């Protein structure tokens, strides 16, 4: 990017010489597709280090194209139909259908000024900067990744690894080129076989239809239809990777696009979080709707995704993409941390599991140890609490980087029911091992400082600026006109007395605090002093919102992200108000920031408080989750609100969401249910030592089955207990007496034993047993998604309006 600043003419000339001539008005790109810094991300002028960080954030996949092309499909058994999501002839529908944001620098083949004239040339995808080179390598080896051209900034002098530049090659960042949707990147597949491709796609290069079309089963009509996406012998022309930007690049609330289908760089920010993205649906786009995987994980609200769906902890808990803003003033907490830290030497002959030096690099070493450190609470329950840099790096693994080298072997196989076998449960991801075995890990790790510097540029979005007003006073004037004379000041007083104890990072008393003070420290770049949240974790029963996300367990000891959780977090006591297990750091939510609240409705960690939003007629995924008091879907639910990133669109959605927030008794409950019947066919062999039989049976989940109820259920423990009930009842009884006390524990054990008796004749009765014993086996019993946070319901209507007005100024 620095090169672009200093040599824009040369770059433009090179771009034209290489055949790229579709440069959008006001933009220019280098080979990797990086945007002109003066026109994106709030229009800030970024430092060289921040620009490097931005380029990595926007473009680096760190090798996860193999994950999204092979691992996901073959190992995890979930199909992604990348053509359905990214086909260029549906570019104009992409935002409303998938919530993806079109790359301003890409074009549809055949459009005026687009270098590609036909879809054949691009295998049906958009044409993007760098494709002139990339397309030469489809089906061939030798592609040189544009990431190799990244110009690193010098390491800080105080960096223990800074004596000489020993960073992992930038090539391992693996940028590829844009797919046309920001954050999704493509790479030429060297194993692509043109002859096979033409055969399966009816002689067409531009279509993937033969590859992705579902083939209906010939005999068993209940079985889900499958496509050649399940056929690993067919290699598509591209491998698709994902950068962090896929979820985090979005429309700048201050400078929204006139047309969200055709944004320009100046309309985009890299840190606000995509509030429209349908990543659950994208990642299940090749699945039939009558599969259990799709119905449990494929219905997240726009802007929310269950990041623990792959490293599965059996809790259905989609959450929003966090806005990354005002980081310099985000609260930190002194916690007990075990982690790897940079050093420049290790004792000779020492244990490399506690100190390791990279071979061939002079003094590039890490040492693992326990220390007190000040850290952020990053995730919604306070997890990812061993440091900012480690939290950033973990994101790359959660999107599949180094998945083969160090991740998938630690995940749960939902089909594995034998606790003596690998895959029965999670085991901890080993940071030291992945650093050693995965060069992409090191490529990211060696540049985390630059990424963090870029993320620190994320700033609050002031409504007064969005409205083009001179200052906040002018906004107050407008708000007082709309909400009543003196509303903003009245709202400030209410906020100070009723909200600030959780939603301010300043210390009490709050009555005279200025919640909008801007830092005068030039290093802070005019960010706010108050983060408008204290980030402390509080028991979920205090806030009362849907508790599934707070019961997330991947950071517990023995679980996949153990090494990313602090000892302080894990030592917290459980929430005694909950029926579900909540030990090991579970059962908490951190108090979130209210910075720029006007721009981030609907509310709560799952986007469930406020109107439902959707992409309109082009949206293939929306269906109502509104239910009546008995949990039945409403016949006439409120309509969804169309995606509207304009300033007034956001403000209307904010007001409606505030109304729901402050009037909890008026909220219509939302429960996401299956929208298609699911049948699971089983051929279990059951026996009691004397008799054995194979039984052809099926378990059916009807339409409307709450997805959370199935996704939260520990089916493996139920199966184990049913067996134990038959072979060692006393052991089973002891287990539940220890958990629930003598009387209740024995009763539960007897119920399990009773339910187990019918299994031989009727294996499907396992579903009935599960329903009756739901309290015992559920990681979360919560199904209503928009309840809780009833604070403020006792305010008068006028006071609620005043609070709404004041919060809009933050």
């Amino acid at each position, binding site marked *: 990017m620095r090169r672009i600043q200093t040599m824009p003419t040369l770059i433009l000339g090179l771009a034209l010489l290489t055949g790229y001539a579709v440069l959008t008005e006001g933009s220019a790109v280098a080979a990797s597709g990086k945007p002109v810094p003066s026109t994106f991300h709030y229009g800030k002028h970024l430092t060289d280090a921040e620009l490097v960080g931005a380029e990595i954030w926007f473009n680096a996949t760190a090798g996860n194209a193999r994950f999204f092309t092979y691992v996901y499909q073959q190992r995890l058994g979930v199909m992604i139909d990348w053509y359905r999501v990214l086909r260029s002839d549906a570019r104009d529908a992409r935002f409303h259908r998938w919530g993806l944001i079109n790359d301003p620098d890409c074009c549809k083949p055949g459009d005026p000024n687009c270098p590609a004239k036909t879809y054949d040339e691009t295998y049906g995808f958009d044409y993007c900067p760098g494709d002139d080179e990339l397309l030469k390598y489809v089906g061939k080896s030798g592609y040189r990744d544009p990431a190799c051209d990244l110009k690193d900034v010098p390491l800080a002098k105080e960096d223990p690894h800074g004596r000489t530049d020993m960073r992992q090659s930038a090539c391992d960042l693996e940028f590829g080129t844009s797919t046309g949707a920001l954050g999704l990147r493509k790479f030429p597949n060297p194993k692509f076989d043109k002859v096979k491709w033409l055969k399966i796609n009816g002689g067409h290069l531009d279509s993937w239809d033969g590859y992705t079309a579902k083939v209906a089963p010939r005999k068993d009509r209940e079985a889900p239809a499958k496509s050649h996406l399940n056929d690993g012998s067919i290699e598509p022309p591209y491998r698709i990777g994902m950068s962090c930007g896929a979820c985090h690049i979005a429309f700048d609330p201050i400078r929204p696009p006139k047309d969200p289908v055709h944004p320009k760089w100046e309309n985009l920010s890299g840190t606000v979080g995509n509030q429209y993205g349908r990543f659950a649906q994208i990642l299940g786009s090749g699945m039939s709707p009558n599969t259990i995987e799709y119905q449990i994980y494929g219905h997240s609200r726009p802007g929310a995704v269950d990041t623990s769906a792959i490293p599965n902890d059996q809790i259905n808990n989609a959450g929003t993409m966090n806005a990354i803003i005002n980081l310099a003033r985000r609260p930190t907490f002194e916690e007990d941390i075990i982690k790897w830290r940079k050093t420049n030497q290790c004792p000779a002959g020492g*244990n490399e599991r506690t100190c390791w030096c990279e071979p061939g690099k002079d003094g590039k070493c890490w040492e693992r140890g326990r220390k007190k450190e000040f850290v952020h609470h990053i995730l919604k329950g306070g997890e990812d609490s061993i440091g900012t840099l480690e939290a950033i790096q973990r994101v790359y693994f959660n999107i599949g980087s180094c998945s083969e080298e160090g991740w998938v072997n630690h995940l749960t196989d939902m089909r594995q029911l034998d606790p003596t076998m690998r895959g029965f449960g999670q085991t901890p991801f080993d940071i030291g091992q992945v650093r050693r075995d995965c060069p992409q890990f090191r490529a990211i790790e060696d540049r985390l400082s630059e990424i963090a510097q870029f993320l620190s540029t994320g700033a609050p979005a002031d409504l007064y600026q969005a409205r083009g007003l001179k200052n906040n006073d002018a906004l107050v004037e407008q708000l007082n006109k709309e909400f009543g004379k003196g509303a903003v000041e009245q709202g400030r007083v209410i906020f100070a007395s009723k909200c600030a104890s959780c939603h301010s990072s300043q210390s009490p008393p709050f009555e005279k605090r200025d919640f909008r003070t801007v830092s005068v420290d030039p290093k802070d770049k005019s960010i706010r002093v108050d983060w408008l949240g204290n980030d402390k974790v509080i028991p979920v029963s205090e806030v009362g919102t849907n508790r599934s996300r707070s019961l997330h367990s991947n950071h517990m000891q023995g679980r996949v992200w153990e090494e990313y959780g602090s000892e302080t977090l894990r030592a917290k006591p459980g929430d005694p108000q909950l029926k579900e297990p909540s030990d090991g750091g579970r059962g908490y939510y951190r108090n979130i920031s209210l910075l720029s609240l006007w721009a981030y409705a609907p509310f709560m960690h799952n986007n469930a408080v406020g109107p439902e939003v959707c992409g309109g007629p082009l949206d293939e995924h929306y269906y109502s989750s509104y239910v009546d008091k008995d949990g039945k879907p409403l016949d006439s639910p409120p309509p969804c609100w169309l995606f509207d990133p304009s300033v007034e669109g956001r403000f209307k959605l904010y007001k409606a969401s505030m109304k729901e927030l402050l009037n909890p008794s008026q909220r219509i409950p939302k429960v996401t249910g299956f929208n298609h019947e699911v049948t699971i066919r089983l051929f279990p062999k059951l026996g009691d030592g004397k008799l054995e039989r194979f039984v052809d049976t099926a378990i059916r989940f009807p339409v409307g089955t709450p997805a959370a109820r199935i996704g939260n259920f520990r089916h493996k423990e139920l199966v184990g207990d049913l067996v134990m009930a038959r072979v060692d009842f006393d052991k089973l009884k002891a287990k539940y007496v220890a958990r629930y006390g003598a009387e209740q524990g024995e009763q539960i054990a007897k119920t399990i034993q009773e339910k187990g008796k019918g299994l031989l004749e009727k294996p499907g009765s396992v579903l009935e047993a599960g329903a009756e014993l739901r309290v015992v086996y559920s990681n979360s019993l919560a199904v209503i998604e928009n309840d809780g946070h009833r604070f403020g319901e006792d305010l008068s209507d006028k006071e609620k309006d005043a609070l709404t007005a004041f919060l809009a100024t933050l």
Partner: protein
Amino acid sequence: MKRARWLISVSLALSQAVLSGCPPTPDPPPIPFSQSGEQYSDKVDFARLEHELPLKPSDLMKITPNNLKGANQEQVDQIYARLTAGPIPDGVYDGQMFFPKGSSERARLAEIVGGGIKGFVVDRKAATLEHIGEFIWKGKVFYRGEGVLRNRIEDLSLLKPIVGPNVEKIKKLQVDGKDAWLLFPAKLYCGQSLLDGRRESVIIDYAFTDDLPGYREMPDVLAGREGLEIRDEIRMVRPGFYLGRAYMKKVFALNFTLYNKAVADKESSTFVGSGTVNEDCWIGNQRMTATPNKAGNQHVRLTEPLE
């Protein structure tokens, strides 16, 4: 019910079966293993295992189809995870199926059908259906150039109820003077191991075989996507000798070996000397073995084959 029984029996014919007779259990291969506990959480991580106890060519030469039957499942898994896919085989391979010794044998069997817990499974003596596989499945024939594999069936009479008429149209091959019918075609490719993701295995996939020459709906459909979704994966122990794992509906069923004596005799001595073979599949980005903080650590950047 009848169909279900056939599905199970045929799947086991493809993917090996329980041995009815119990010859003396051999000792496991005399190679280094890591101690592991009974529970999944007590098993050694494969990356750590391979880093600290890599298998040398001389170790691999000590492994035989016979002594693998003396290994428990954890030992078999530890061997498999330290292998690479090697070259995609070509030609005729003799097959043997095996359940390893140890208590987990019963659990393995139950795992196929969704039980998976000791005590929840059948008496092995009563499991007659599974034995069919032992008698009819004799190995596999690889057509490397076509990316296709076919299974060798020596006794067609047991399959007649489901094979139907026109048996004479089934492709045949003579192996060691005996007729072998070639059924259950599969596609061959490099792909993900369901046990160890750190490198690819050679995949033998029955899901989409209806477009292959000679496909015969009955019985071939029973192994495919509308049947039991059989998927095998193999890695090379040494030239001419592969260790395999068979899955049904993505659930591990059992182990098998494939052996071609001619290839083994011809290429083993070179292999022992060089320790290298052609790799058709992705073997990871790099490999480093443990010699902590000393000069001379292996730190080799590997490149993807065929690219």
